[in-house]
C-alpha cells in the first residue's frame, strides 16, 4: 500500500490497450500541475505503456505497484 496521497483516481480495470492510455491522457488534462493521479489497471500492457508515456510526456511516475493482477501507478502532472 502506497503512502502517496493522490488528488484523483482513474480506474481502468477491465479495459485493454488503447483505452488505459487514452483515458490517462484525458484524465491528466483535467488535473492541475503538481497534482497526483492514481491509475488502477489490469491490462499488463500498462506496465510498459505507462512508464514510457510518462517519459515521453514529461510527467513523473512517482511509484508503481502490482499484485493479484492489479497495477497501481501514481503519476504527478508536470
Amino acid at each position: 500500500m502506497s503512502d502517496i496521497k493522490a488528488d484523483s483516481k482513474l480506474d481502468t480495470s477491465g479495459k485493454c490497450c488503447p483505452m488505459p492510455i487514452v483515458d490517462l491522457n484525458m484524465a491528466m488534462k483535467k488535473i492541475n500541475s503538481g497534482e497526483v493521479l492514481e491509475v488502477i489497471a489490469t491490462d499488463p500492457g500498462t506496465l510498459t505503456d505507462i512508464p514510457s508515456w510518462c517519459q515521453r510526456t514529461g510527467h513523473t511516475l512517482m511509484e508503481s505497484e502490482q499484485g493479484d493482477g492489479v497495477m497501481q501507478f501514481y503519476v504527478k502532472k508536470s
Partner: protein
Amino acid sequence: MKSLAIVVREDGYDKLLTPLAFAYLQGAEGTQVDLLFVNWAVKALTEEGAKGQVIQGSHADQDGWVRQQVEKAGLPPDIYDVIQALKSTGNVNFYACSLAASIFGVNEDNLVPEASGIVGASWFLNEKASQAEHCQYF
C-alpha cells in the same frame, strides 16, 4: 512522436481495429495522425460501410464474440463509433483515396462527416506520409 501517417487497405471489422487503435492511442496523446483509406477499406468511411464491417474468412463465425471482447476492452464495438471517438481527440484526420472512392462508390454525399475529404494518393504520400515522423501500412 509528432506525426503519424497510416495507410489502411484491408477492410473487415477485425482488420480495421489495429490501425484505428494505434491512431486512437497517438491521437489521444497529441500526435497528429493522418489516415488514408484505400481499396475496399475506403467503404469504412461511409456510415453504411462502417456499420457493415464484419469479420471475414475463417474467423467469420467469431464476429459476435470479438465485438463483445472489444466492448469489454473499453472500445466502442461499432467501427463508426470508433471513428467518431478518434475524431473527438482533435488530432486525427481521415482521408478517402480518390481512386478507391471512385471504384468502390464513395463520394462527398456518402462520406462520413468525420472524414476530411477525398484526396489524391500523390497528395497524401507527399504531404502527409513523407512528412510524417512515422508511417504505417495495414
